[in-house]
Structures are given as C-alpha cells and as structure tokens.
C-alpha cells in the first residue's frame, strides 16, 4: 500500500514563531517574575513599559527643570538672595544663561556663581534707586545694558 495523503497532513504552522516571541520577550528580560519568560504576560508588561517610557520622556524635561531650579534657589539663598530675584535680575542684565548652566556653575564653579549673584544684586539696587530716586539720568552700569532679543 502506498500512503500518499499522509505527507499532506503535515503542516508548517509559521516558521518564525521563535523570533516573533523573542522580539517581545527580549525587551522584558529585566522584569520580575514570570513576565520575563512567558509570552502572554510579557506582551502586556512590555506594552505598559513602552507607554511609560513615552510618557516619561516628556516628564523628564519637567523634572530636570525643577531640579535645576531648586538647586539654583538653594545656592542663591546661601548668598542671601532668592531664586525669583536672581533670575529676574539676571535677565534684566541680559545674562542669557539657562537654568541648567547656572545650576552646573553653582555646583562646580562656586565663585562664578557668587559673581552672578553679585551682578543680580547690583542690578536690583539700581532698579530700587531708579524707582525711588526718580532721577532722570540712568543710575548705574547694569541698567544701561541693551536687552538682546
């Protein structure tokens, strides 16, 4: 007897299952529990992880900025000034350093940060004298700086 239809019953049900599974499970290798091995659990966990990563990229910018601001505030309070006063007077003296650079200066270059605080203090005093004195001539050097745009 010749069995001809037996070979037709053998089917290859998709030869790439291993690689399709690995594509997802390799992103879950550092997870805890069965989600780092089993495909059904890993799919849900990996999707969540990617969603959190996307959201986190937008939040990271906010967190970094608040960190810089709190560091600058702490450093300026050591020199007897507050953060809003410092930043406002620096922008009025046309010092266009951003918060990241100023916080790095406060950490690694404390004397430069002290000089920035002194510039802001001088500009603040000039502003007070201009407001209170009501003299016609401009008071000091820092308030004569042209604001670049």
């Amino acid at each position, binding site marked *: 007897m010749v069995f001809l239809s037996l070979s037709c019953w053998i089917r290859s049900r998709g030869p790439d299952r291993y690689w399709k599974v690995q594509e997802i499970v390799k*992103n*879950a*290798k*550092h997870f805890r529990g069965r989600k780092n091995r089993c495909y059904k659990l890993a799919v849900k966990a990996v999707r969540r*992880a*990617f969603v*959190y*990563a996307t959201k986190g990229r937008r939040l990271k910018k906010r967190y970094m900025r608040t960190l810089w601001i709190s560091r600058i505030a702490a*450093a300026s309070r*050591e*020199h007897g000034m507050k953060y809003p006063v410092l930043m406002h007077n620096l922008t009025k003296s046309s010092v266009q350093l951003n918060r990241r650079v100023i916080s790095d200066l*406060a*950490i*690694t*270059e*404390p*004397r*430069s940060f*002290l000089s920035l605080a002194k510039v802001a203090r001088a500009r603040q005093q000039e502003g007070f004298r201009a407001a209170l004195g009501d003299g016609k001539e401009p008071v000091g050097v820092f308030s004569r700086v042209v604001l670049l745009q």
Partner: protein
Amino acid sequence: MTSRGTPSRFLQSVLQNGVGRYVCQLKRLSIIFSKNAQSSLGVRGFIEEGVVDYAKYNPSTVVYVSPQSCRIPKIVAEYLNGNVREEIVTSKTSIQISEVLTKLTNQSGLDIIRLRKPFHTDNPSIQGQWHPFTNRPPCIGPIRPQKQDTEQGLSNI
C-alpha cells in the same frame, strides 16, 4: 526601547585619541561580494575604481576583498577595540559605497547605543566643587566648650 531595557554608555574617546596624534581605529575591512549577482554590481564597480585609492589613502587599515557566492554583499569592519560592524551594501552605487567606507573609517569602534550625556569632562570643576563649607565664613580662634560659669557653679554645689 526603554532606557533600562536597552544598553547605554557615556561619551568617551578611545584613549584620548585626537589629543596627541590621531590613530585610525579601523583595523580591517573585508568586502564580501559575488562575482555575478546583480546586487553586487556597485561593489564590483567600487572594487574596479576606488578600492586601491582607498587603501593607499588609509595605510593603517588592511582591506580584504573576497569574492564568494553570496546573496547579499557585505562590508565587515573590525576595530582596534575588537568590535565588529557589518554593513549590508546590496544595490548601492560605488559612490554610496565609498561614503559608507568613509563613515566606517571615521568611527571609533565604540558601540552605537544611546549616549547618556552629549558631553564628558575629566575635570568638571576648576574652582573647586561645592561642599557645605565653601560659602561659610571661617571661624576665628580655636573651637572650645563655651560655658565655664555653670561648671564652677556645679563644682561648688
């Protein structure tokens, strides 16, 4: 593609390469192509025209040309730190292949993964890094226990 799931590294140069002399980090180039297939047409054209000039221009890189019967032509670049990089050059013109080669020559062999910071310094602080005593005024005189009257009072009792 999470930041913890994928590898990342800091920006670095290989042993401060450009500071003194510059050493080309590309050690070996192997061009694998086929003699008769359509996909290796550009590679064959590049080998006719440009390979010898490239090898003369970069004397520190060894160029191997190996015709094999293969479906996809490849360029395998090996670097001095041991990393191996394969570029697939199917259906590229010889100008594009020379651009690929210049890109491979200019790379250092470090991994092409996410860079954590786009800068790096060995000496981040010049004026001295901040510590809690930088902006405190130094105290005058030695530090001693203060109250001597109360001690005399206790000893009387």
